[in-house]
């Protein structure tokens, strides 16, 4: 799924990385604990989270992720946006809650890595 499609499905605002919106991604994960992302995530390239601080970008950067989606109407500040820009990452923000945001992406074909695509 292209990142632009993710933005469209979630009615998300794009904060940085507009030039990367046509990048394709193949799986995603949702988490508020960065410890868990670092410990359990494998090759997911999209992180949905309700946690908003610069360590979210750092964590995604270490994991080679391409896109962060802040859920529940949380807005990233300039520090976060600048870090993401440096790391070549897209930052999106949606008013949807975690469950619905993940559900929408999942039902449109962006699955986790535990499920093989049919």
């Amino acid at each position, binding site marked *: 799924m292209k990142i632009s499609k993710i933005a469209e499905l979630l009615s998300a605002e794009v904060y940085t990385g507009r030039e990367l919106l046509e990048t394709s991604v193949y799986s995603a994960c949702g988490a508020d604990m960065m*410890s868990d992302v670092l*410990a359990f995530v494998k090759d997911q390239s999209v992180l949905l989270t309700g946690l908003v601080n610069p360590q979210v970008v750092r964590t995604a950067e270490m994991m080679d992720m391409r896109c962060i989606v802040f859920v529940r109407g949380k807005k990233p500040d300039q520090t976060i946006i600048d870090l993401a820009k440096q790391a070549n990452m897209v930052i999106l923000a949606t008013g949807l809650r975690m469950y619905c945001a993940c559900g929408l992406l999942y039902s449109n074909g962006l699955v986790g890595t535990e499920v093989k695509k049919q």
Partner: protein
Amino acid sequence: MKEPKLSLHYDIDGTDFLAAGSASSDTKRILKQSGIDARVIRNVAIAMYEGEINTVIHAGGGTADVNIYDDCIEIILTDHGPGIENVEQAMQEGFSTAPENVRALGFGAGMGLPNMKKYTDEMTVESEIGTGTVVTMKVNL
């Protein structure tokens, strides 16, 4: 041991948790330029970042040294913090003494040290109460 091809040194500021991770980020950027396999770079980055965060949240900062050899990458994190009372216990998944404010920032699940072990080929933790901690990790190339 042979001389490293490249050595990096960083001071890790212990006062600003939100700024933590810059050493790991810089190391990752430099490794990417050196043509090392992306998966190896990711393992190094994750392990070093976990260690860097630990240095900030548990020890008030310290230093990070990265030595790149022909056949491995070595990461050494040194701090003069409180030390770890029981290293074996600290290595268990889920063991954490992180305070509530650290949890609110998304850390403190007790997964860092086990994760560092998982992502590296060798890891030693030398720690003394009141003196500090040295974590040495190696990732083979």
